[in-house]
């Protein structure tokens, strides 16, 4: 019996030790996290501002959110990556129009998402930097106790970092659009892709 109690003490001490190690809080406040956090905080401030929720402020609200996203997102890089091998064959006018339309589509998708913001918690879970590329991992806790893993991919341009891809639960936005665009172009044509893009953006 005594031996058993001795074992139990050692056992509990060991578990206590493990808890202590586990409790060491580590604060992530890297450069990239700050960039993403700055933009996210700005957007959350706009969407949770009660005054801005008035119907007559809707346009102003959209403009402010758009501005905050534009500062951090690199639409051209995104456009290039989604067209991938089809990018090189395009002339400047086509490229310009594509960047504009694709940017609008992404902006609207993002806007629709943040418009529905209802107090979800955003946790910054770490970042990696490798040369001119970096990632920021974010966990979003929904009001339904569901956690969503989001990964921002950033690229350094000059002194600043810009987002060029967002992965949600492992699904990269850019990869997803690339697959869609490639399928449309190979089955029909680049012109058809542009036509569909235009319709989608106008209907938005």
């Amino acid at each position: 019996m005594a031996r058993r109690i001795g074992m139990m003490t050692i056992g509990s001490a060991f578990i206590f030790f493990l808890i202590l190690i586990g409790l060491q809080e580590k604060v992530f406040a890297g450069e990239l996290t700050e960039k993403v956090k700055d933009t996210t905080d700005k957007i959350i401030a706009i969407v949770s501002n009660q005054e801005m929720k008035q119907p007559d402020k809707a346009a102003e609200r959209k403009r402010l959110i758009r501005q905050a996203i534009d500062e951090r997102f690199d639409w051209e890089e995104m456009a290039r990556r989604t067209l991938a091998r089809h990018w090189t064959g395009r002339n400047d006018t086509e490229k310009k129009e594509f960047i504009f339309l694709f940017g609008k589509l992404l902006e609207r998708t993002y806007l629709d998402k943040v418009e529905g913001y209802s107090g979800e918690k955003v946790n910054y879970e770490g970042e990696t930097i490798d040369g001119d590329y970096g990632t920021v991992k974010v966990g979003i806790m929904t009001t339904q106790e569901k956690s969503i893993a989001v990964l921002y991919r950033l690229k350094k341009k000059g002194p600043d970092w810009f987002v060029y891809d967002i992965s949600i639960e492992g699904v990269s936005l850019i990869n997803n659009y690339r697959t869609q665009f490639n399928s449309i172009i190979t089955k029909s044509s680049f012109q058809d892709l542009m036509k569909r893009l235009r319709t989608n953006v106008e209907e938005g």
Partner: protein
Amino acid sequence: MWRRDKVLGPLGMKRKFFSVILVCCFFSLIDIRLAWPGSLSPFEIAMADSKAPHDHDEEYYEEVEDEIYDPIEPFNRAMFVFNDRLYFWVLKPVAEVYNEILPEPLRVSIRNFFLNLLTPVRAVNCLLQGKIDGFGTELGRFLINTTMGVYGFGDAAAVCFDIRRRDEDLGQTIGLYGVGPGIYICWPVFGPSSIRDTIGMVGDGFLNPLYFWPQEAAYRAGISGLRVVNSTSLDLGEYESIKKAALDAYVALRDGYHQYRKNKIKD
């Protein structure tokens, strides 16, 4: 059995129960330890993995496509349209009425209850994948949520102890051993899948208590229906926004499924 109990006595049983709890706590602690800073967290391991050449390759215009093979696309597209109609004409209207009747916290609890029942699927697949810590986590979660969480309606393990569910299934297990998805299949009602994941789904069925209980098929169907309507009611609007953002919703869903499963197998 009767004899053994008598020999062990009530004290012996208690001790047994206590040591099971201790073992579970121990395993879940390993999990917390792994997920927390200080050592290499699963995230860092995943990160090391995702430093794939495509991130740094300046030649990304020539990027190799990683798409799921889809030789039965005409059939799949037809099923996609069928599921789309099923959602907008049947499932969504029903879920909207259901939404009106039950408040959200109650619907979250019902989802938790079903997820708790599916613990055997996740726990066994953790074992099959050699994730002993995950097995401990699932066992610990089941004990905590069934008791403290009252039959699993509350996710006490996540709320009080931050012990999160480990989503493992047979499709992922088979994938971990190097088997690819085969071909893409869009099943009517069940939606996006692959050969591998269909086999996995059938295999996991044997570990799903709702396949055996209750014995009357009508009740079983009713419970499955409740589960589907309940989970739909919590995700209303998600399918719509995917569709709205897509230029080809069928391809968007197919690729989304492929990427999602690849990521699940990796972690």
